[in-house]
C-alpha cells in the first residue's frame, strides 16, 4: 500500500525553496511606479512648502498688525484724559479727535449734565463702524466706535471703545443722580 501523508505537509515539501521568474516587464512597471510616486511626492513637498511659507508670512503679517493695534490702543489716553473739542455745542456734528485739547473733558461732562436734565427724549446711540484702510500697510482693518447724542447732535468717533463706555457710564450716573434728586 502506498505511503500516505498529510496534504499540507506534502504541499509544503513540494513548494519549498522553489521560485518562479516573473515577466521581464515587471521591472519597467516598478520603475514607472517609483518615478510617478517620486513626482507626486515632490509635488506634495512643494505644496507643503508653499503652504507653510504662506502661513509663516500671514502669521508675521497678522502678528505685526496685532502688536501695532495693541500699541495704538495702549498709546490712547484714558477716557477722562481724552481731549474733546471745545465747542461741542456750536457744531452740528462735532467730532472729537485725538488732537483736541485736554481740558475740554470737563466741558463734555458739563454738557452731558445739562442734556440729562431733560432726559425724556434723549437718545444715545453707540455704533460700530469697521473701516478697511488701504495704504502703506495695505488692508488694515480699523474699528471706529461712534457716540451720538441726539439731544445736542454731538457725535464722537473714536477707536477707543473704553472712552465711549466711560461716556455712557458718566451719563447713566448722572441720570441716577437726577432721579434721586
Amino acid at each position: 500500500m502506498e505511503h500516505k501523508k498529510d496534504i499540507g505537509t506534502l504541499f509544503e515539501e513540494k513548494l519549498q525553496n522553489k521560485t518562479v521568474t516573473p515577466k521581464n516587464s515587471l521591472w519597467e512597471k516598478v520603475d514607472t511606479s517609483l518615478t510617478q510616486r517620486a513626482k507626486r511626492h515632490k509635488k506634495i513637498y512643494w505644496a507643503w512648502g508653499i503652504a507653510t511659507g504662506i502661513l509663516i508670512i500671514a502669521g508675521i503679517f497678522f502678528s505685526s498688525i496685532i502688536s501695532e493695534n495693541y500699541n495704538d490702543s495702549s498709546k490712547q489716553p484714558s477716557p477722562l484724559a481724552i481731549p474733546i473739542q471745545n465747542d461741542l455745542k456750536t457744531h452740528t456734528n462735532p467730532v472729537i479727535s485725538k488732537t483736541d485739547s485736554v481740558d475740554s473733558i470737563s466741558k463734555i461732562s458739563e454738557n452731558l449734565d445739562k442734556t440729562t436734565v431733560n432726559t425724556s427724549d434723549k437718545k444715545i446711540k453707540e455704533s460700530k463702524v469697521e473701516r478697511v484702510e488701504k495704504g502703506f500697510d495695505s488692508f488694515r482693518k480699523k474699528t471706529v466706535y461712534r457716540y451720538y447724542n441726539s439731544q445736542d447732535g454731538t457725535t464722537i468717533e473714536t477707536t477707543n471703545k473704553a472712552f465711549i463706555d466711560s461716556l455712557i457710564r458718566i451719563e447713566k450716573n448722572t441720570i441716577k443722580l437726577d432721579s434721586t434728586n
Partner: protein
Amino acid sequence: MSSEEELIERCKKKNRAAQSELFEQYKNTLYFLSLKYCRNQADAEDNTQDAFVTIFEGIKNYKGKGSFEGWMKRITIYKAIAKYKTKKDIAMDYKDNLLEDTTIEENKMKLPLEQLLKVIQKLPDQYRLVFNLYQLDGFSHKEVANLLSISESTSKSNYHRAKQLLKNAILKLENTPKNT
C-alpha cells in the same frame, strides 16, 4: 560592510541602479510568494510590483534587525493579505473538520509546480491565506487570527477546510485523463 548591506544603503539613497539590482536578486522569490497568496498570475504580478514599490519606499525604515529577505517577504505577504482580506469570518466547527481525512498518497502529488500553484490559487481567499500563512510560511494560528482579524478557532477550521479542498482538487486532477 557586506555586499547586501551596501546594496541596501544604496537603495536607501534611492539609487535606481541599486534598486534594479535588488529587484533582480529577489524578484523570483517574491513573485513565487505572490503566486501562492494570489488568485492568479496577473494578481501575483501586481502584488509583486506593489511589494517592491513599498520595499523601496520603506527601506529607510529597515534597521538591519532580522533577515532582509524575511522583511521583504513579510511586506509581500501583508500586501496580499490587504488585497484579499475580507471581514467575513468563515467560521466552521473545526472539530468536525478534523474528522475528515486530509492525507493523500505521495505519488498523487507528482504534479508540475504550475499545477500545484493553480490548485492553491483556486482555494477561496480566506482559506488560501490561512493555508499559506500557517502551513507554508510558519505563522501560528494566533498570528494568523491577528493578521486576518478572525478568531483562532476560525483559523484552525479554515486551515482544515483548505486541506480538504486541496485533497479533493488533487484527486480530481488525478482522475482527469492526461490527454485532455
